C-alpha cells in the first residue's frame, strides 16, 4: 500500500467513517437512513455490521464505497477518498443485490473484470479460491443461486483488494454454501486484508468477525468485541395468550424490558426471562400457550435502544 501524502496516522492506517449522515425522500416524507455514524476500522481487522432491515447498513456501505455521497461527514479509505481507493483497485465488494451479466462464461467474466484492475489476482487462483473453478466454463445465465453468489464473490476478490466489503453475502446461500463461503473469506482475510461485512445473523458475526458494530435506525447502538455484543443482546422473549392483561402492568414486571400486543397474545422482551416468567405467572395465572425463545435481533435491538415497540 502506498500513500502519497501524509494524512493523519489513524486515517492512513485504515478505514474511517466520521459523522456520516444520509437522508432520502420517501413517500412519508424525508427519512434519515443514516443519522451520524462514526466507525474506525484498523487494517487487517474483520468487522461485522449488524442490524435489522432498514437499520442503515447498506446505505452506510454505499457511502463507504463511494456509490452514494453523504449529506454530511467524511469517508477515508486508507487515507484516500473512496473514489481514489476504488481507482487504485484497493476495494472489492459484493453488493447486497445484483445479478451477473449474461452471455459470458464464468471464466470469461472474471477475466473481463480482472482486466480492469492494476494488480489483479490471477483468474485461475480466484476461481479456485471461491470454488467457481468447477463451473468456470458455464454461461453465467445458467448458474444456480449458490453458484451465482460464488461468482459474485470472485468478482469482488479478483481485484485482490486491501478492503473487502460484503453486504449480506450469504442471504441466498444454503447452510453448506454459507460454511464454504465463510471459510474462503477467512482464508482471504488471514492475509492481512481488512474486511467489513453486513449481516442479519448474530452467529455469523460471532463466528467470523473480530468485532461487531450494531446499527439500529441509522445510528450505531453498540460497537465492540463480538462476545460482549452477544452478552448484550442475549435477551429472550416470552409470548403468551393473554387477552385481558393491561400492557402497562406487564411492562412493570421484573425482568421485562419491552412489551408488545399481537392480537390476543402479548410479547415480552426480557433482560431476565427467568424472573419475568415467574412474575408473569404470579400476576396472570390465566396465561396460556406460553413460549420462551432467544430474542431475534429485532427484539434485541429494541431492548438495546429502549425504543417503544411498534412506535
Amino acid at each position, binding site marked *: 500500500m502506498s500513500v502519497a501524502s501524509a494524512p493523519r496516522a489513524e486515517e492512513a492506517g485504515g478505514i474511517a467513517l466520521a459523522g456520516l449522515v444520509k437522508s432520502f425522500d420517501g413517500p412519508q416524507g424525508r427519512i434519515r437512513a443514516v443519522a451520524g455514524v462514526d466507525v474506525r476500522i484498523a487494517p487487517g481487522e474483520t468487522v461485522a455490521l449488524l442490524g435489522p432491515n432498514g437499520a442503515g447498513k447498506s446505505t452506510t456501505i454505499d457511502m463507504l464505497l463511494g*456509490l452514494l455521497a453523504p449529506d454530511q461527514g467524511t469517508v477515508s479509505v486508507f487515507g484516500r477518498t473512496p473514489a481514489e481507493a476504488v481507482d487504485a483497485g484497493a476495494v472489492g*465488494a459484493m453488493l447486497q443485490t*445484483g*445479478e451477473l451479466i*449474461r452471455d*459470458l462464461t464464468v471464466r470469461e467474466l472474471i477475466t473481463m473484470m480482472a482486466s480492469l484492475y492494476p494488480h489483479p489476482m490471477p483468474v485461475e487462483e480466484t476461481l479456485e479460491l471461491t470454488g467457481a473453478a468447477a463451473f468456470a466454463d458455464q454461461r453465467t445465465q445458467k448458474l444456480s443461486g449458490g453458484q451465482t453468489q460464488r461468482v459474485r464473490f470472485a468478482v469482488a476478490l479478483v481485484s485482490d483488494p486491501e478492503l473487502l466489503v460484503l453486504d449480506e453475502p450469504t442471504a441466498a446461500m444454503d447452510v453448506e454454501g454459507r460454511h464454504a463461503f465463510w471459510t474462503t473469506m477467512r482464508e482471504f482475510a488471514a492475509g492481512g486484508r481488512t474486511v467489513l461485512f453486513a449481516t442479519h445473523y448474530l452467529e455469523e458475526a460471532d463466528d467470523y468477525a473480530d468485532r461487531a458494530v450494531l446499527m439500529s435506525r441509522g445510528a450505531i447502538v453498540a460497537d465492540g468485541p463480538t462476545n460482549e455484543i452477544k452478552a448484550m443482546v442475549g435477551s429472550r422473549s416470552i409470548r403468551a395468550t393473554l387477552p385481558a392483561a393491561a400492557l402497562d402492568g406487564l411492562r412493570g414486571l421484573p425482568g421485562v424490558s419491552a412489551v408488545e400486543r399481537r392480537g390476543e397474545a402479548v410479547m415480552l422482551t426480557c433482560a431476565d426471562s427467568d424472573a419475568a416468567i415467574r412474575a408473569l405467572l404470579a400476576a396472570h395465572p390465566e396465561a396460556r400457550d406460553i413460549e420462551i425463545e432467544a430474542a431475534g435481533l429485532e427484539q434485541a435491538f429494541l431492548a438495546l435502544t429502549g425504543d417503544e415497540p411498534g412506535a
Partner: protein
Amino acid sequence: MSRSSLLYTRYELLRTLRNRRFFFLSLAFPLALYYLIAAPNRHLHDLSGTGIAAPLYFMVGLVSFGTMGAMLSSGARISSERQAGWNRQLRITPLSTQAYFRTKVLTGYMMALISICALYAAGATLGVSIGAGRWLEMTGLILVGLIPFAALGILIGHLLTPDSIGPAMGGGIALLAILGGTWGPIAQHGFLHSVAQLVPSYWLVQAGHVAVGGSAWGAKGWVVIAVWTVAASRLAQRAFRRDTARV
C-alpha cells in the same frame, strides 16, 4: 485506449455476438427483408424517381434499418445492466464512466459494421456493383449518420426498463425507417418530404446517392445529423446524471 479497455471491449463484443437479439434485429431480419423486397424489383433501374436502382436503394435502406437496431441495442444492454445492478458493480472498479460508454458505442459500431457487410454482400448477389472509392464514401457517411443513434442508445438505456425498451425500440425504428425511406421514399416533395428530411434515418438512406455518383448530404444533412447528435447527447447526459444520483 488502454489495454484494459481493449480487453473489456473484446468481451463486451463477444457477449453481444452471442446474443440472439442482435442476430435477429440487425442481421437475419434485414437480410430476409432485403431479399423479399429487392429481389422481385431487381430490374427496376429508377425506384420511384430517386434515380437509384431498386437493389441498391433497398440495400442502403435496410442497412439503415439494421444499423439503427445495432446502435440502439447498446441501450438495451445498458438498461438490462442497470436492472441487474451491474452498473453499480462497475462503479466500484477503476473503469471510468467514459470508458463504459465508449465500450458500448464501439460495440454498437462493430455490430453495425457486421450488418453493413452482410447487406453489401447480399446487394452484390442482386447485382449491386460500385467502385471501391464510392463504397468507402458511402460507408463513411453511414457511420457518421449513426452518431446520433449512439447517443440515443445511451439515452434510452437510462430512461427505459428492459421490459419497455423492446417495444420502444421496435416502434421507434419502424417509424424512423418509414419516415427515412427504408421501404422506398415516403414523398419526393411537399410537407411529408420536409418532415422526413428532419429525421436522421433519412440521411442514412440518402447515403445511397453517393454510390451512383450523386451529391452527398449537402449542408442540410450535416445540420440535421449535428443537431440530433447534440440534442441526444445532452439528454443522455441528463438521464445518466439523474440515474446515478438516485442509486
